[in-house]
């Protein structure tokens, strides 16, 4: 894990430019939002997530997170069928602030087109560069 200007970027994940991360876990993909994203939103008080069985599409919103002063769409990093939803985050949305890459995961998806979609995402090294860029142009 590296920190870019205080923002965590863990290794072993793929990242989208819409502030999502994914972790490939065998046949499945775990998805969440980055540390950088949660820090822009600050104290998150509400997470609206899809039900298991819902379809999500790469680059399209699948839910929203709302903080005291902001609201943002959750944009899917890959397409697929939602297999599991983190119900703990729904009852304790502050987990998104406290632990965005671990206990604050949002959904687990069975991807439908991972081979084609994965190249659209950034790997760890690209994500570090991208974060550096975000911080500079801020």
């Amino acid at each position: 894990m590296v920190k870019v200007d205080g923002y965590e970027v863990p290794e072993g994940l793929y990242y989208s430019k819409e502030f999502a991360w994914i972790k490939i876990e065998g046949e499945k993909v775990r998805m969440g939002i980055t540390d950088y994203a949660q820090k822009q939103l600050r104290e998150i008080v509400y997470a609206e997530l899809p039900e298991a069985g819902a379809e999500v599409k790469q680059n399209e919103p699948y839910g929203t997170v709302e903080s005291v002063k902001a609201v943002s769409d959750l944009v899917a990093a890959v397409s697929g069928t939602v297999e599991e939803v983190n119900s703990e985050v729904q009852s304790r949305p502050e987990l998104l602030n406290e632990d965005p890459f671990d206990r604050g995961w949002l959904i687990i998806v069975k991807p439908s087109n991972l081979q084609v979609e994965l190249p659209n995402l950034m790997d760890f090294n690209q994500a570090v560069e991208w974060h550096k860029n975000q911080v500079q142009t801020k």
Partner: protein
Amino acid sequence: MAKRIIVIGANAAGVEAASAARKKDRTAEIILITQEKTAGYSRCGLPFVIGGQISSFNDLIVYPPAYFQMLKLTLKNETKVTAINTKEKTVTTADKAGSTETLPYDSLVIATGADAFMPPIKGREKQGILSLRSLEDGEKILQAVQNGAKSAVIMGAGLIGLETGVALIERGLKVTVVEMLPQILPQMLDADMAKLVQEHLQEKGMCILTSKTVEEFLGNDKVTAIMAGGERMEADLFISAFGVRANTKLAVDAGIPLGETRAIKTNARMETDVKDVYAIGDCAESLNLITHKPTCAQLGTIAVRQGKVAGKNAAGDYSLFTGVLASAVTRLFDVEAGVTGLTEAAAARAKIEVVTGVISSKTKADYYPTAKPIKVKLVVEKESQRIVGAQIIGGEEVTQRINALSFAIQKEMTVRELAKADTAYAPPLCETWEPMVLAAEMVLMKLR
């Protein structure tokens, strides 16, 4: 519901309004337009980059591009709104390349802020007079310091002038502050309280000349000296801090009425006299909670609160801005100064008869080694015995006392109620008798 909301100005007030609008309406198109290169940065932090406490101007950016992206707010920077047409409900813009565009709106929020004010002083067209309003202004001042400026004259002893003066002393410059009125911080403090701050600043090496009007800028093309109160003052750096003026030209040209303070007139929803057009922040006026008269206090804290209200209303929600007490705080070297509500002088101008109480105390138990002095002044309306204002000068712990007294004034607390306040105590943290309570007791005795 509004389909398209346009916000002119993307700073404290504008960004807050756009965020509040987005919370209400997840689908409306929300466009923020600013003529500046950088949006969503804190002007209030500028003096502390100059002073060196904050390492870079970049750190002042509160809302980076990612924020706008996440909230689906369209940001057009380096783009100036050149006209508003309230009949057609459009704004016309020109970007830096000069190309123009006309954009329709359903709701419009004017958050054009204020600019540094330069009075009609002889020689004002000369180069080298800096002010502190934008990031670029800050960079210019810091650049001048890094280029070896050794001395500075600051014109105006308001908050911005003094904060800048402190920053320059911290950078090793010799600083002279020239003020037209007989006291420093004339908008914020009564003369008796301002004197304490002035003494502290002088102890720290600031040269303060009050009751001196700047009469002329001297020098060929570039200013090399000023004349003030008949005296010639030379320096390497000249900073004008004469105050700020609301940016109202767009509104005036569009026929949107100004109020008696010459800022844009608004109602409690922050709506102007023209339907679906809102005005917020440094360019807008709203009511003073005590005098019930329009006021334009031009503070960041007011800008964000007005912004939230206007943003909600612009998106079809309902929200009211109840008014201002113009609560403000500052730290100048080791002294904090704060105000809420009316000063004694402001009360007199508003023909409100008051009784005051002033208490000197300590910020910790008197015997506790690091206790610092603190002075509380309460301003109480005579007939109702309601608290209408307070000023505090102290080594620490000023802000939250100002906030507590601001709540008290908002809740129309009487001085009798304040004298019975249930306060906490521990020697390393505060005195047994809270100085605000003692000040209330003093007022009660005077009211007997």
